[in-house]
């Protein structure tokens, strides 16, 4: 039985789609049959980030409405075996995510895949609620700034009260916090919240820290999940996050501005 992972945040523009694409790619790279679904009906960004936008025939909404079969809509990734993209419709809106239809599709996907990664839209309305409803695990994407942290807190509360697991009184959705666009230099200057600040406010275990990196923009513009770029610090950080997600112990990289700390240590000693 496949596991459903929702990538969510409450706030928009924090890196949900980048994360969903990277996590799904990372899981497939490690041999798990994985599909990544775009729940952001009406905007449709995932297929662009995954670089398969010119191969979309049928979409999520077609399958929900019974106009197409699941296998007709799933797009197989050309680079990685076992990776599939399930794009959404750009011509419809979130109301097209009908409860029974989504339930049926998720059941079918659970039977066929190891991991189902749901890329949630921003907000706490119907689209986001549909994306998180079936979740077994949640990756909460947060930027180190107060409004993003607050929205993440809100969405964690919703996971605990409105998910299927909550409704059925099953063990709660496992929460993982992914801190994205992190800049240790800006933390040191007091312009950003630190990992510890965020951890203290949210009391959720940290899955990873993704450093602010130009390679993320480059990756999404070329339709290549950033995790496939070994020269990118963000890519390597996502690789760590996937490993941790699968239970490996890895040290938290990119949390500190290494060089600066070195200099500070020198000055400290001189005093």
């Amino acid at each position: 039985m496949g596991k459903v992972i929702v990538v969510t945040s409450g706030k928009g523009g924090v890196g949900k789609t980048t994360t969903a694409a990277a996590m799904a790619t990372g899981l497939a790279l490690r041999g798990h049959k994985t599909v990544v679904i775009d729940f952001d009906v009406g905007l449709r960004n995932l297929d662009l980030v995954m670089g398969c936008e010119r191969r979309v025939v049928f979409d999520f909404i077609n399958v929900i409405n019974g106009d197409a079969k699941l296998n007709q809509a799933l797009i197989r990734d050309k680079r990685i075996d076992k990776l599939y993209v399930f794009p959404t419709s750009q011509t419809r809106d979130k109301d097209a995510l009908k409860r029974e239809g989504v339930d049926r599709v998720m059941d079918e996907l659970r039977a066929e895949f190891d991991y189902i990664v749901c890329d949630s839209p921003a907000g706490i309305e119907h689209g986001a609620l549909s994306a998180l409803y079936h979740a077994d695990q949640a990756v909460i994407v947060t930027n180190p700034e107060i409004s993003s942290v607050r929205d993440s807190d809100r969405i964690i509360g919703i996971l605990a009260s409105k998910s299927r697991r909550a409704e059925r009184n099953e063990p709660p959705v496992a929460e993982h916090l992914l801190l994205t666009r992190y800049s240790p230099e800006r933390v040191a200057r007091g312009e950003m919240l630190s990992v510890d600040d965020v951890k203290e406010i949210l009391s959720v275990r940290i899955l990873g820290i993704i450093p602010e990196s130009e390679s993320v923009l480059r990756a999404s513009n070329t339709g290549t999940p950033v995790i496939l770029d070994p020269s990118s610090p963000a890519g390597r950080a996502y690789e760590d996050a996937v490993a941790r997600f699968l239970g490996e112990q890895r040290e938290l990289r990119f949390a500190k501005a290494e060089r600066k700390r070195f200099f500070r240590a020198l000055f400290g000693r001189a005093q």
Partner: protein
Amino acid sequence: MAINRVEGGIFTVMVIGVGDPHDPALPQAIGEQVRRSPDFFADAPVVLDLKDTLSCTSVADFVALKTVLRRLRLIPVGVQNASAPQLRAALAVDLAPFPSLGGRRAAPRGDTKANGVGVATRLVTRPVRSGTQIYAKDGDLVVVAPVSAGAELVADGNVHVYGALRGRAIAGARGDGDARIFAQRLEAELLAIAGHYLVNEAIPTEHLKRPAQVALVDDRLQILPGFEFEPGRA
């Protein structure tokens, strides 16, 4: 010869609904009634009905009320439908408790506390997230996890937070001025006891991010650092 000096007697006593004791129209409203039949009211004993009164938890409130009534040549002798803190203040100014007629007030307030049994205590063991409201009816709310900004804790009794309190905490939601708020790390957006409140900006900074308890003293919220008992403090 033994004389029984204590015996029962049944009297009719007027009952005055106090409502809001600070309502400036209150003396006039009572005064009008008195003027209609001055002889009937002259030096008559009256019972104060506190059914619809949320304040009147301090001695000062009752002293003020007594002064108003004495000026109208009425003699307050007792109170009816008083909550536990109201009754305490009333007794301090020699107002006796009278039974309520016809049981207009359902469950007597402060009953769960008087029993000393936390029957209605609500325990929360997971973080209380932004946008969540938790209400402990008729009792205390105990949270052994952090309470996020944007979350709201409400209890008819006390609110206890063994963790950071960053949201709102409302104790004594149905008027119990003896209720308190306890927080291991006080960072609350809002604190309220029996309708009296303090916003975050009004909390003295020396109390922030520290253990503290909040109590209602003379109708003002007072923040007491820490949980330790100190002789003489509120």
